[in-house]
């Protein structure tokens, strides 16, 4: 009865304790928001690569990281390879320097690309949000990822300027919260022209250039087997990444991030729990007579313990709500700014918000256990003597 009034009676102390927990939960929320975002990108990558074996040329001494038409044809022949998706990837803006979410011009052969989307698993399928794909034979057109569209403030019908060339925006892709949000898909011929135009060697060699990146589409459980087959079938000088290898690397990155969240959570535990324990011990000492009276009129040990536990839980809950609330505002503020720069940095998911609030309430309850036990164990006669 009267938990909130009891806490409000000591506003300053309760406020400071709530603030102590809120700071910890704020750290947890913001760190967690960043981890959620990066985990989302990792999951996007995992989904994308679960059906794909990435093939990259090491480029040899000339460092020409390209696949020739013969290489692609050899890939197609490998048993277990259902399809070979080819990209020509170039940085979209050579003068952009370091970008938090890098932007790429990705040259694709549209039928080849769309077939790969069908075979590459539902979770990794890139779909149109607005506009349409370009028609066969169309040049200097582009379909943009959501981050590029947002950052460069482009919509269907606008013109994208990339590497000195103009591309008409014909479509926008659905947001994936992952790497493809930074892609500007263009016809493969346009990308190939830009690539060779920038390289005197490529121009002079006049190689039958097919792609900078190739992906062999396979059944997810055949990744390692087919990767070995490709290694035996292709000429030397290629780097192969099997789905299992990529998944393992992604898993390790994800574990690292989860550890970071738990680390920030541990700070919340230490800071918050100590302040709750301190506050509750003081509350027990201050209210010894009140406890004595309650026990005299018939409150059991459990009744007294529950009252103090409820108070410490409410302190935790208020700290959690405040921490997650302020964290939400900070995340929204930074996301508003960084979305303008290309991509939001944080992702405050419902599970993260609920975890923050629940964790804080649990923390409050746990920290209140020892003080509550002490209150419950008070001898009523001794307690009544206090005045």
């Amino acid at each position: 009865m009267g938990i909130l009034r009891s806490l409000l009676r000591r506003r300053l102390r309760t406020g400071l304790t709530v603030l102590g927990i809120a700071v910890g939960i704020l750290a947890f929320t913001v760190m967690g928001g960043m981890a959620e975002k990066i985990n989302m990108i990792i999951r996007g990558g995992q989904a994308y690569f679960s059906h794909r074996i990435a093939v990259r040329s090491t480029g040899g001494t000339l460092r020409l990281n390209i696949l020739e038409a013969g290489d692609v044809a050899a890939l197609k022949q490998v048993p277990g390879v259902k399809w070979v998706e080819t990209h020509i990837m170039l940085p979209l803006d050579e003068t952009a320097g370091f970008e938090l979410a890098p932007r790429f011009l990705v040259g694709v052969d549209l039928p080849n690309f769309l077939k790969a989307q069908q075979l590459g698993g539902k979770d990794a399928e890139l779909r149109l949000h607005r506009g349409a794909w370009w028609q066969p034979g169309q040049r200097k057109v582009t379909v943009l990822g959501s981050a590029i569209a947002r950052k460069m403030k482009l919509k269907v019908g606008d013109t994208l300027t990339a590497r000195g060339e103009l591309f008409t925006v014909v479509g926008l892709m659905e947001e994936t919260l992952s790497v493809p949000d930074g892609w500007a898909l263009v016809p493969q011929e346009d990308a190939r022209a830009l690539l060779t135009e920038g390289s005197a060697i490529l121009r002079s060699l006049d190689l039958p250039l097919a792609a900078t990146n190739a992906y062999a589409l396979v059944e997810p459980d055949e990744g390692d087997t087919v990767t070995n087959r490709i290694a035996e079938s292709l000429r030397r000088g290629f780097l192969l990444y099997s789905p299992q290898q990529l998944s393992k690397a992604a898993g390790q990155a994800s574990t690292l991030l989860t550890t970071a969240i738990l680390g920030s959570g541990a700070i919340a535990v230490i800071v918050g729990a100590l302040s709750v324990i301190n506050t509750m011990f003081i509350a027990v000492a201050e209210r010894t007579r009140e406890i004595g009276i309650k026990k005299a009129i018939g409150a059991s040990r459990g009744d007294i313990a529950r009252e103090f536990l409820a108070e410490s839980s409410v302190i935790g809950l208020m700290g959690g709500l405040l921490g997650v609330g302020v964290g939400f505002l900070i995340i929204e503020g930074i996301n508003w700014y960084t979305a303008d720069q290309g991509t939001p940095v944080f992702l405050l998911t419902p599970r993260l918000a609920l975890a923050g609030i629940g964790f804080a309430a649990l923390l409050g309850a746990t920290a209140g256990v020892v003080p509550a036990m002490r209150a419950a164990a008070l001898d009523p006669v001794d307690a009544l003597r206090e005045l």
Partner: protein
Amino acid sequence: MLLTAQGLTKQYPLGVTALRGVDLAVGKGEIVAIMGRSGSGKSTLLHILGCLDRPTTGSVHIDGVDVSRLPDRTLPSLRLRKLGFVFQAGNLVPTLTALENVCLPLHYLRLRAHEAARKARAALEAVGLGDRLQHLPLQLSGGQQQRVAVARALVNDPALVLADEPTGALDSQTARELLALMRCLCAERRQTFVVVTHDPLVGNACDRVITMADGRVLPA
């Protein structure tokens, strides 16, 4: 007899003896004062009669039950159902309203909130505080606070009401009024009332006075 005590002694660990063989018997509906100087053992006796403390030797029977042999865990329930307490000033929970203070025993009895509120309201009306239900203790006078405490002691309809210096912090007029109120309410409900006091005014208002000195009951 509603309350009997036989051969009660109480010794504290450092060798202090508070009670040295107390026998007493109080009938149903009787109003009894326990008087004596400070240190005579009267508060210790009240705590033992109220199942807040245990005697070193001897026994206490309330309504025929030997409460001195009951296990600790059953005592809160016994106090909740059979006993009512009024202590000196400052025995209300300061953060709870008058109504909530009176609701407390009913809350511990797990009564539904609206039923508890109804009973508590009736109890406060019986002590003349029907218009002070939502007042916090600090917003009430000393006499009003003690009347809230009386309402709380009686709300669960106990067989035995124990009071420890209930008028200790009140002026004589307010003390007289409080005492008259308690007498009246206990008589109405045939409740037994044992009050520890050093105030002769209180003693005179009771059916019988038990005088204590040095841990013993003096012959009447």
